[in-house]
């Protein structure tokens, strides 16, 4: 049975904007993206919203619902009180284009700055073999759907625009970790560049990225902190540093 749902939706562009009140029907089992589509169909024909799969797997409908970064297609309307007004805004860490759509190209630029997987010289396609226990760690990171909720909630760039130059963000720390933990990747300077070029030291591990991840990737515990520890191995641990000089290799592999 349909009931009425009160929404406040941010409308505007990069020059101006504000929250607009709207009341819309909501049926049992519907998610926030459903009611946004109903608003678009019935009341605000020009409402801009980015969406695609409606199944929590494409990462397109990232927005902020009652101030929390979430996927609209995975947020049940039933999770709110009946008399509650739900506030929906675009992601607040990125430049707004129109209404609920933001310009997330920052993330694509950062993705291009990370060197790709580099296999051993001479290894031909189809040759690599890995054991399951070596694959498992990076498989967790491959679940990422690039919704950029972690990037959006990370205060390093959300609250400090100037850090965008020097900070890759949690989504790309899991990419770096995935490659640095890969048994066949031969690029050995990923720790150094993570710290010096991608701003790993700016992260103060407040775990917001982990809290908002819709894929429940343990970004901080399994990627960022292990990378910080690997950086400590190289830069702040004199015993390990000395060992690596004597043994002429990066560390225990």
């Amino acid at each position, binding site marked *: 049975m349909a009931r009425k749902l009160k929404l406040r939706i941010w409308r505007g562009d990069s020059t101006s904007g*504000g929250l607009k009140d709207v009341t819309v029907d909501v049926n049992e089992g519907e998610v926030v993206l459903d009611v946004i589509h109903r608003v678009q169909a019935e009341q605000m024909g020009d409402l801009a919203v980015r969406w695609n799969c409606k199944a929590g797997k494409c990462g397109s409908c990232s927005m902020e619902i009652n*101030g929390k970064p979430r996927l609209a297609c995975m947020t049940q309307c039933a999770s709110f009180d009946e008399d509650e007004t739900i506030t929906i*805004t675009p992601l607040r860490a990125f430049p707004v284009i129109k209404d609920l759509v933001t310009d997330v190209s920052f993330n694509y630029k950062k993705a291009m700055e990370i060197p790709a997987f580099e296999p051993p010289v001479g290894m031909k396609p189809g040759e690599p073999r*890995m*054991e399951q226990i070596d694959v498992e760690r990076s498989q967790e990171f491959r679940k990422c759907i690039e919704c950029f909720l972690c990037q959006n*909630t990370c205060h390093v760039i959300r*609250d*400090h625009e100037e850090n965008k130059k020097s900070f890759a963000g949690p989504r790309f720390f899991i990419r770096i970790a995935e490659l640095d933990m890969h048994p066949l990747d031969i690029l050995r300077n990923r720790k150094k560049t993570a710290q010096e070029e991608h701003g790993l030291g*700016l992260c103060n591990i407040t775990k917001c990225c982990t809290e908002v991840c819709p894929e429940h990737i343990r970004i901080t515990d399994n990627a960022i*902190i292990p990378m910080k520890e690997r950086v400590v191995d190289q830069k702040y641990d004199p015993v390990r540093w000395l060992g690596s000089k004597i043994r002429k290799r990066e560390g225990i592999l």
Partner: protein
Amino acid sequence: MANGVFSSSRAQISEKTLRTDKWWLQPLITFSVLVSFIIYATFRAFENGNYFVEPLISPFYSPCLSTECVQGASLLGTPFGIIHIFGMTLSPALIILIFPLGFRMTCYYYRKAYYRAFWFSPPACAVAEPKEKYTGETRFPLLFQNAHRWFFYAGLVFNVLLTVDAILAFRNPEKQWGHLSVGTLVLLANATFLWLYSLSCHTCRHTVGGRLRNFSKHPLRYKAWTLVSVLNHKHQNFAWISLFGVAFADFYVRQVATGAFTNFYFF
């Protein structure tokens, strides 16, 4: 100039956050508990008394390394003489507390807790922080957080010593073995919680196997990493339980030493 969520290119919203839940509750609780602990620990560290009553010693004062220590409290001898600073006698606790304190201060979990609760950096997720500038852990003094592993190693030594203290508590006041008191259980629980806190530490996880690229080539270390990973999921819980544990163990020993409590012996 407007920065962060108020930058000109972002959606123009005047509120620092639109969260409607009690996002402030968690940092408030963290702040209150940590401040309470700091006040209690400071008082006890400077009290310089009521920390030993045969066979119990407070974890704040173990190992007791100063000639200032009361008789029977020094398990490892007294390499330090009586130290005076500004006319005050330095409590033996102050000689050693830097190690457990440093371990907790640089702990990855506590960093999250106090960055949020004390520095509002950020106070909660998607809640704008008040500071204009942010350099994270790239500069002194926060660069020092990278010393966590050294405090972890020191912490292991302390865990061994506090475990020995717990074992020594299986004696009666006449130093005869084979007795069990409430104090024994308190010190034993304290040592257990501290071991769980240390073994679940992210640095421990990295050291036992996390730094490897090839788990399949190191099956024993992989097994150890797997076990520590299970504990690591609960690191936050162990951090709090062990903090309460150490404070309670000290409180109990103090109450017994002052005569407020009688250390009940089961046998």
